[in-house]
């Protein structure tokens, strides 16, 4: 698509799609792996860590950081595509 300032609706729609995907991952690692499915995951061990416990105290935090930086990159690309970059 050519850079143009006339597609705020399309821009917003793509933005919402990104948000939905990223927040789904956000939910899955913390509430999913760290809380709801902790018991099941704890049967798997990585080094000394039961996996569910690891997600709750370590893994989810690493994923959170990565999620924000992925979001930053995706949005910067999207801004360029729609000509909102500055």
């Amino acid at each position, binding site marked *: 698509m050519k850079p143009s300032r006339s597609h705020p609706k399309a821009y917003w729609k793509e933005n919402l799609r990104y948000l939905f995907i990223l*927040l789904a991952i956000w939910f899955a690692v913390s509430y999913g792996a760290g809380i709801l499915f902790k018991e099941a995951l704890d049967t798997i061990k990585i080094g*000394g860590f039961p996996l569910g416990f690891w997600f709750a105290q370590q893994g*989810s935090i690493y994923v959170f950081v990565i999620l924000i930086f992925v979001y930053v990159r995706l*949005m910067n690309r999207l801004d360029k595509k729609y000509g909102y970059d*500055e």
Partner: protein
Amino acid sequence: MIYIGIAIWSRAGSTKEFYVAGGGVSPLANGMATAADWMSAASFISMAGIISFGGYDGSVYLMGWTGGYVLLALLLAPYLRKFGKFTVPDFIGDRYYSKTARVVAVLCALLVSFTYVAGQMRGVGLVFSRFLEVDINTGVIIGMAIVLFYAVLGGMKGITYTQVAQYCVLIFAFMVPAIFISIQMTGHVVPQIGMGGTLDDGSGTYLLDKLNGLSEELGFAQYTDGSKSTIDVFMITLALMVGTAGLPHVIVRFFTVKRVKDARKSAGIALLLIAILYTTAPAVAVFARTNMITTVSNQPYEEMPEWFTKWETTGLIAFDDKNGDGKVQYTAFAKAENEHPANELTVDRDIMVLANPEIANLPAWVIALVAAGGLAAALSTAAGLLLVISSSVSHDLIKKTFKPNISDKQELWIARGAATVAVVIAGYFGIDPPGFVAAVVALAFGLAAASFFPAIVLGIFYKKMNKEGAIAGMIVGISLMLFYMLKFKFGIFDGGKVAVAGLQKDWWFGISPEGFGSIAMLVNFVVAITVNRFTPVPPEEVQAIVENIRIPSGAGEATPH
């Protein structure tokens, strides 16, 4: 001293510099300042201790206080930056085209900030009193003087640069002892790996397995399992996450950068910097717990190390030789049960981080470093909160509601006056805590979750959201949270604090007051959307504002109007 020097160098010359540091802070500096602002006495001093005693239960703080940044970065920060005003009530007031909405938001902001700042002043006082060897009241007063000096003089500009310095101090102070102890116990330099590693004593046992074994032996829940119910863990985590995203002193940070893309990036940097401490804390918790149990459990009282007796004099460690055998029995049982002896040792959770280097026999300079770090953490957060309080009063109440025609200079002086009054009130609560200050700090998140988060999110993502809905939602949400907290945390309807423990069985759906913010938030959403359906849609120009904040370009600088 250094903090004050920076404050003088960067003192504010205008309201704009006072509120948003002139809007020209780089994302890295802003990220560091946000991280220091965010990591309070609770993160630095208390959190590892809480995890240490709670094991898996402590995860709620780890996930809650970091996961909130994802919400903040994705749902709030960029849009609020584009909106380009000074404060959260500013956004609420303009987006919902109503003075009432603004005043409700100001009251919520004051309530949240005050409950939070009182705990910080207490933390400052604790560190000063322990390490300057003055009594705690003198400690609080010294702390008040320092915070007042640079928050009032410098405003946001002063605070931003002092917080950058404070971040460096506090992260260094947290990491050094953690790395030392990790090497000592497991041979790993990185504590995050050491935590899951094997013990360095040639036995080949995993550290966590050993700790689970020790805990079980003494009658505690397994360290990696904890004892809270799944629903409560879920709800507390949610309340803390949403509360983090709704805390006014954190949100206001994102008004200080130049462009919308900087706001996104600086949220990422802030979380990265916070994550360094937050992934180390659970490791510190495991090391400290294991060390403490092996040092004291079933050992003769006579042979306790120096740190034990030193903390005993502060009253934060207490030993009572119930069976008279001269040894310290540390167990989960109040009375002797089966083959388990009764517990004879009480340890205040807050001392774990401060005492940890002493327990592990680290050199004195490391111990001093930890004190400096605790101080930096508490001071930076207190200053950020005071700024929110003062700007809420001077900007949102006086300038925007009661006296719109005061000059910029007068407004600046009112802001400084408000900060002074706020410090004095916070100091009073620090010296003379009503007994529940520490408990209230956690509840500040519930209050923020129940009030701001829904109003802001709906304001951005639901164009047709009107003022009636938003105001009703905020009022119902925060009232419900206040009610639940007063009933189940302070027991005021059932005969005071003594009744609190007995009320636990009456918790709605088994959710603790700390986790109830999630429910209050959902109720806020439901009320807001329901009321919205039966009242008129917002005017065209407001809908145009919403369209505009969704587009990142042309943010300009944060302006008064």
